[in-house]
């Protein structure tokens, strides 16, 4: 098949290229197996990726998607099986090998050095692979590439000060400048706001039209359907099926992803809005709270919220509206400049996390390895930090048994309680923290974008457990999220946060979606 390549935005036809996509895949993975201690991460996985296609790799948390991408990118060495690039066998033993064969891995968390500028980061990568070395030249390239990607970036800006989206743009620049033919995108879009995500898809489509191959790894079914030409579904380390575009069907895909995993059991129960007794006293109350961010600017400006027992307060807003600071104030990590924080009627303003935790407040955040866990320590130790029986002495045996019990209860996949937390997949780390905090919380739970790295089933299971705890134990929940859909699904009362201010508080049953959307962006 001869494919004529599309136009680039300038309107000029760039070049014509013949792509024999049907005969020879750009990338062929055959029978790849990868074992980790106690886990079979990939079980004889085979996959073909053609030039000029966007191929989505879909599966729930821990199904082996990222592992496969990392094997292709030379980060992991497979135990068995082979990889071919354009018909030639490739045995990548390092990321550099893969990059030299035109393969670039775009990780979920950008692999950049915060202290260096954009140009320096790009330069460092190029220099590592012996491409070029002149600062001026690279600066020009950075400006050009940024425009090309459609997201202008100051080449002199320190990477640490960039937003998540901008960091991913820098990663894309690196990919483009290294002459990437095969781009592996690992859950990158999960974190992006809708508008940026669409721009990103546009860019992927452009790559596709230039004859490049894109492997888009995601656990979100709608995303895969929206942008992919083909979808390969993975489950428990195996490829279940590869679907052509005409075969796409959300129910079929869901079945392939979660078969025998009881998805329907979760959807059916516990998702209805709970009845609230009006006269109960607030468990969490913030009064006119002002707090600054790291650079000394006000991130919270007079926040006023209150949450009653058996109530879920959803706080929704676009990314960077003060959500992180708000959650830190609520758990006692960040001190406030002005205003008061009452927990169960007691003034706990600037009393620190000890008082808040002692009252039985749980905390789940979007970055568990930053806020909640130590990656270098075992799961038992990470559990024991929050949940333990005794006083000054720890009984490792009983803690380990307790950890195992909680892991089984919440279906966390890990070799043993002795496993280091950082070895777990992103979804499992998140579920581990959720399990720990749900077990711990007696009075309230603070959740900051808790479902970001979770697949559909884990999200439903989390929300349903949360609702059960709210109903059964009278837990109060502050549910902070960037996803309006999720907040609408979870909350009893909804508040909109914008630029550090609470723009309005609404009853879930009566509020119009448009009203909330308007407040989020105004």
């Amino acid at each position: 098949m001869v494919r004529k390549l599309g136009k680039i935005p300038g309107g000029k036809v760039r070049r014509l290229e013949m792509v024999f996509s049907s005969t020879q895949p750009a990338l062929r993975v055959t029978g790849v197996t990868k074992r980790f201690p106690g886990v079979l991460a990939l079980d004889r996985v085979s996959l073909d990726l053609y030039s000029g296609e966007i191929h989505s790799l879909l599966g729930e948390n821990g199904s082996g998607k990222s592992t496969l991408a990392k094997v292709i990118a030379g980060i992991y060495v497979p135990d068995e099986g082979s990889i071919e690039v354009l018909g030639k066998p490739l045995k990548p033993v390092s990321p550099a090998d893969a990059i030299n064969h035109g393969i670039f891995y775009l990780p979920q968390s950008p692999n950049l050095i915060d202290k260096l500028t954009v140009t320096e980061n790009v330069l460092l990568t190029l220099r590592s692979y012996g491409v070029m070395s002149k600062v001026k030249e690279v600066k020009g390239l950075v400006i050009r590439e940024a425009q090309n990607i459609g997201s202008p970036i100051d080449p002199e800006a320190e990477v640490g000060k960039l937003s998540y989206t901008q960091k991913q743009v820098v990663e894309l620049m690196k990919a483009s400048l290294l002459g990437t033919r095969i781009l592996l995108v690992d859950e990158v879009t999960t974190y992006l706001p809708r508008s940026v995500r669409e721009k990103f898809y546009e860019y992927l489509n452009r790559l596709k039209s230039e004859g490049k191959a894109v492997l888009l790894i995601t656990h979100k079914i709608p995303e895969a359907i929206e942008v992919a030409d083909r979808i390969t579904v993975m489950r428990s380390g195996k490829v279940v099926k590869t679907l052509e575009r005409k075969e796409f069907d959300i129910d079929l895909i869901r079945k392939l992803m979660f078969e025998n995993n009881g998805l329907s059991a979760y959807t059916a129960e516990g998702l209805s809005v709970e009845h609230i007794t009006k006269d109960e006293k607030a468990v969490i109350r913030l009064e006119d709270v002002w707090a600054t961010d790291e650079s000394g600017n006000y991130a919270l400006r007079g926040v006023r919220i209150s949450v009653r027992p058996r109530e879920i307060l959803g706080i929704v807003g676009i990314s960077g509206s003060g959500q992180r600071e708000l959650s830190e104030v609520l758990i006692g990590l960040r001190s406030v400049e002005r205003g008061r924080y009452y927990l169960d009627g007691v003034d706990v303003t600037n009393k620190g996390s000890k008082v808040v935790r002692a009252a039985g407040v749980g905390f789940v955040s979007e970055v568990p390895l930053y806020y909640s866990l130590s990656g270098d320590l075992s799961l038992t130790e990470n559990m024991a930090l929050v949940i333990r029986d005794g006083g000054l002495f720890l009984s490792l045996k009983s803690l380990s048994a307790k950890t195992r019990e909680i892991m089984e209860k919440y279906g966390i996949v890990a070799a043993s309680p002795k496993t280091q937390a950082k070895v777990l997949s992103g979804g499992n780390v998140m579920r581990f923290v959720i399990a720990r905090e749900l077990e711990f919380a007696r009075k309230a739970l603070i959740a900051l974008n808790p479902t970001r790295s979770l697949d559909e089933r884990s999200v439903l299971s989390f929300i349903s457990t949360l609702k059960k705890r709210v109903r059964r134990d009278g837990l109060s929940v502050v549910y902070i999220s960037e996803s309006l859909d999720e907040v609408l699904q979870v909350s009893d009362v909804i508040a909109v946060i914008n630029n550090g201010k609470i723009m309005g508080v609404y009853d879930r049953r009566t509020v119009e979606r448009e009203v909330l959307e308007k407040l989020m962006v105004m």
Partner: protein
Amino acid sequence: MVKISLVITKRYKRTIIESTPVILMGSLLTGLVMSYLIIWATVGLDPLSFFTTFYQTLVSYTGLLESLLFLTILGTAISIAFYGSYWNVGAEGQYVLGMLGAIYVVMFSPLSGFLSGNDLVSAAVLKLAAILLGGALGALWSLIPGLIKVFTKISEIPIMLLMNYIAYSLSDYLTAGPWKGRYTYGYIRTDMISESARLTVIPGLETLRYEVVIAAIVVLVSIYLILDHTLLGLKIKFLGTNPTALKSSGFDERKVTVSVATISGFIAGLAGAMRLLGYDYRLPYNIGDGKTGFYGYTAILVAWLSFRDIRFIVPSAIIVSALSSFGYRIQMSLKGLLPPGISAYAFSQIFIGTTLIVYTLTRITKEFSVKLVIRR
């Protein structure tokens, strides 16, 4: 302007050599071969006498055991601090403070008057009090930079290095002033402590003292137990690996830092007190002139070699004490071979140097990749 920066990033992929014992032994062997090559190239020492000396060092273990015990105690003190990201480079000063505390109790305190009798009980009480006060002063010496770190966020490292010199000066001031001895044949130093206050020599192993052996075992075992079986140990490990998780779980990281500083300083002070009661028996003048044996500094190497793994303290202490003792022995073989102006002492340090360089490089490349970036 040219600006050069070293960029260190955590490795994605593991390197071939993984196990700490292999890295330790490998560094030791490579270090030995490298240092021999250096000595051979500069002064032409024959391999036979080089390796015979090394063999003799290992065989004459009694000499090794003495430094091994002190390096184990001090290495554990520094290691527990490293666990909690408290970079205790002040063990040397804490060790000197321990010496001061011990000599004060047995010579100048009211207690020494009450308990000067030669009966076993009062001697034991006196020794115990001396060791405990030594530990307490060591803890105090470590607590000062600890509190400064906690309340002002100023790094403990430079403060501790300075405080080591203050400790030396304090000791010299006391030795030349209020504590100056009467029976010293004109030397500036303190008098010897009484026989009854000295630690007990182990018969047959003249370089060892019962109390020091017991202390080394107790310290090592209790630190191991603290780290793995107490809430404090868990907090220390979180402090060293993710202080934010510690804070968000309801703990005050400042309190944990203070605890770590106290424990670490206490153990270092303990070692100093035992050194005085068991070996030195008096304080010399110019104590900073190598008269402490620089144990407090050498023990940093022990802690560094065992990097946050208490199980490797003893093997590391063996390596470090073997290498330093080997260094002193090789000085003899080098006599007459050295060109003028080069001291045998410099050569004696080659072994520790090369071994540590090899070890450090392996350690670093195991976990990080290092790149040099030049900005113009």
